[in-house]
């Protein structure tokens, strides 16, 4: 099991609040809503939100008589911070943990699509490509609980090893996936090269 990087870098409350808001930049939420969705106490959340807004990581606006908070997408480190959260506690860690029971049967798994590119919108699904001999049903069952945690649907694509090797370089769908950004959940870029074969 790898080191939980996000928990090393950020205190837990901060990590959860930033994970929620920075990965949903088009949503503005009231403190109580943030508390509900992170499962954290409302009082502590209010202090955390105030601190993060004063530091410029969050934007605070008045909506009616409520203060709502959203990601400050024009902040100087928004893109970098969102990227760290996407790869760790905000998404990548949740999916890796969900797939852990299948580790022996999945050689490679990564997120692709709009989420991996950092271009997700409120309704975007999380696309995950897996290579190995796990069945589609096993993967759907393993990933199902993560959908509730992440508040997004997860769409898995499961390829057998020989099927992936045969099609990775020739099928337009796979060539497109391979040429674009990924968030690795099991295995790494080197494993991907090996499994996809080395021909151009």
């Amino acid at each position: 099991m790898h080191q939980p990087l996000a928990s090393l870098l950020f205190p837990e409350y901060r990590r959860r609040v930033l994970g929620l808001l920075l990965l949903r930049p088009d949503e503005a939420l009231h403190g109580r809503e943030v508390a509900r969705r992170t499962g954290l106490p409302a009082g502590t959340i209010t202090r955390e939100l105030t601190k993060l807004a004063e530091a410029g990581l969050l934007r605070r606006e008045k909506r009616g008589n409520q203060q709502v908070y959203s990601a400050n997408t024009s902040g100087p480190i928004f893109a970098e911070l969102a990227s760290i959260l996407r790869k760790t506690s905000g998404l990548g860690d949740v999916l890796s943990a969900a797939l852990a029971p299948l580790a022996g049967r999945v050689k490679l798994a990564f997120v692709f699509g709009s989420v991996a590119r950092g271009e997700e919108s409120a309704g975007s699904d999380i696309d995950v490509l897996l290579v190995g001999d796990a069945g589609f049903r096993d993967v759907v069952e393993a990933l199902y609980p993560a959908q509730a945690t992440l508040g997004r649907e997860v769409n898995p694509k499961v390829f057998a090893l020989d099927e992936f090797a045969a099609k990775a370089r020739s099928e337009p769908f796979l060539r497109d996936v391979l040429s674009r950004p990924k968030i690795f959940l099991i295995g790494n870029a080197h494993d991907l090269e090996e499994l996809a074969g080395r021909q151009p």
Partner: protein
Amino acid sequence: MTLKNLLGVSLDAVPPDPAAIGKLLAAAQRNLADAQLAGLSAENRFDAAYKAIMQLSMVALQANGYRTLTSKPGHHRTAIQTLTTSVGVAPAQVVVLDALRKQRNLSDYSGDLVPEAVAAECLSSAQALKVHVLAWLKAHRPDLLPG
């Protein structure tokens, strides 16, 4: 959720008709056979099996006196997600069927490749659904079964 709650929202009332149900069961059977044609691509075997799932879901609704409101979007979703209420399919199985529905959207509208594992699961899920729906009819509405 009861099916009645969805009347006018995503479902329409229709008297159960043995002829309509017989046609759907026969179509599902043809699609199950096509889903096993080795000469077809994974994509078209998947499509045939998925059609059978949809036709069997329609049988499940019609046997209860309902059909999906085709004037409303998302009737595939409705047909699959009501299977637990209509004929008692286990929720865990509905999760898999719903995941297959999303795969179908991605291959139909975005050109996503259909992996062999997905075509295989779609066929076995469709076959299991056929067995389940026929057993339900036999137990609850034998009058609707083709003679």
